[in-house]
C-alpha cells in the first residue's frame, strides 16, 4: 500500500485517473471506485447514484453522481465501456466510499471497450501519482 505524503492511500497495482477514480483489472473486466484522496476531500458522502447495468459510459463522462454537504458532483468514468454491475450497497450505505474506498466502496464493474488505449492515460507510477497529489492538494483541501 503506497501512502502519499503520509496522508493518502494509493494501493499498488491499480490505475488512477485525473478525475480521482481508480481502476482494477480483473480478468478482462475492470472494477472502479474513488480514491482515498477524493473521499477525504469530499467529506461525509450522503448519496451516491450510479448508472444501471447495461449502460454505456465514456472515459471522462459520468457513470454516476455523489452528494456531500448539499453539493452534487459527477463521478467521471476512467474508462469507456458498459456497466456490468453497479454497487447496490451504496444506495443505502453511501459512506462505504469514505470507510473503504478500495474495498466495499467500489462503484461499478465495467466491460471496457478501449482498455489498452485508455489505460495509457491513467497513472500507475508512484512518482507520477505523487506529483499529481501535490498539484491537486491545494485545490481540494483548505490550507
Amino acid at each position, binding site marked *: 500500500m503506497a501512502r502519499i505524503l503520509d496522508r493518502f492511500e494509493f494501493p499498488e497495482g491499480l490505475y488512477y485517473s485525473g478525475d480521482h477514480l481508480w481502476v482494477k483489472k480483473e480478468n478482462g473486466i475492470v472494477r472502479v471506485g474513488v480514491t482515498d484522496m477524493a473521499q477525504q476531500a469530499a467529506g461525509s458522502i450522503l*448519496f451516491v447514484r450510479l448508472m444501471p447495468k447495461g449502460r454505456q459510459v465514456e472515459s471522462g463522462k459520468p457513470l454516476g453522481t455523489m452528494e456531500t*454537504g448539499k*453539493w452534487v458532483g459527477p463521478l467521471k468514468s476512467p474508462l469507456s465501456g458498459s456497466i456490468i454491475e453497479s454497487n447496490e450497497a451504496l444506495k443505502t450505505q453511501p459512506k462505504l466510499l469514505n470507510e473503504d474506498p478500495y474495498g466495499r466502496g467500489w462503484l461499478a464493474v465495467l466491460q471496457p471497450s478501449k482498455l489498452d488505449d485508455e489505460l495509457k492515460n491513467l497513472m500507475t507510477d508512484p512518482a507520477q501519482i505523487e506529483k499529481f497529489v501535490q498539484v491537486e492538494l491545494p485545490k481540494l483541501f483548505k490550507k
Partner: protein
Amino acid sequence: MWRWLDLDAIDPIETQTIYDAVAVARGRNIVGDTLIFCYPQSPLVSLGYHQQIEKELDVQFCRDNGIPFVRRILGGGAVYLDRGQLFYQLILGPENPMLPKNVAEAFRFFLQALVWAYQSLGIDAQYRPLNDIQVQGRKISGSGAATTTEGVFVLTGNIILSFGYEKMVKVQGAIRKVQRQSVQDFQGIPFDGVEGTWKRSDSG
C-alpha cells in the same frame, strides 16, 4: 465577462430550470458567467437531486393544492419556496479565477456576499459552515451547489423578503422528511423591513 439576469417574477418551475439551462450553455461556452435573480410567481416545492419524490413528499397533497414540485440539479433536501423569497443563482465556468476548487471554500466565499447584503439591510446575519446563514442562531437562508460534467459550478440560494409563516408550515406538512420548523422559529427575525427595501415589479 459576467452578466446579470434580473428575471423578476417567473413561473415557479422555471425558477429551477432556467439556471440549469444556463449551466448547460455555460459548459458549451455559449454564454458567460451568470448571476440570476428571480422569484416564483406562486409557491412550489423544490427537491434535492438525490431525493426520491414519493418518499419525501405527499404528492397528492401538492396536487390537491395546486403546488408544483420539481427536482433540482443541486443537493440538499425538500424546501418550500414562494414569492416572498428572492433567489440568487450563480453559474461559473471552471476557469473563473474567483472560483475556489474546494467546495466548502466556495460556499464560504460566495455566501459572504449574502451576509453583507443582510447586514446592510439591518439584519445581523452570520455565516455558519457549511452553507447556512443564521440570525440569532436560527437558519434564515439555505443554499445548494453542484458541479456539472463540464466543470461548471452552480450555487443557488434564497434571500427571504417576507415570510408566509403559516402557509410554509402547512406545506411543509406535506414534506415527509424536512427540518421541521414551527412558526415560532421565524418570529422575531425582522424580515418586514427587508421587503420594503427591494422593489419588485408587483410592489409598485
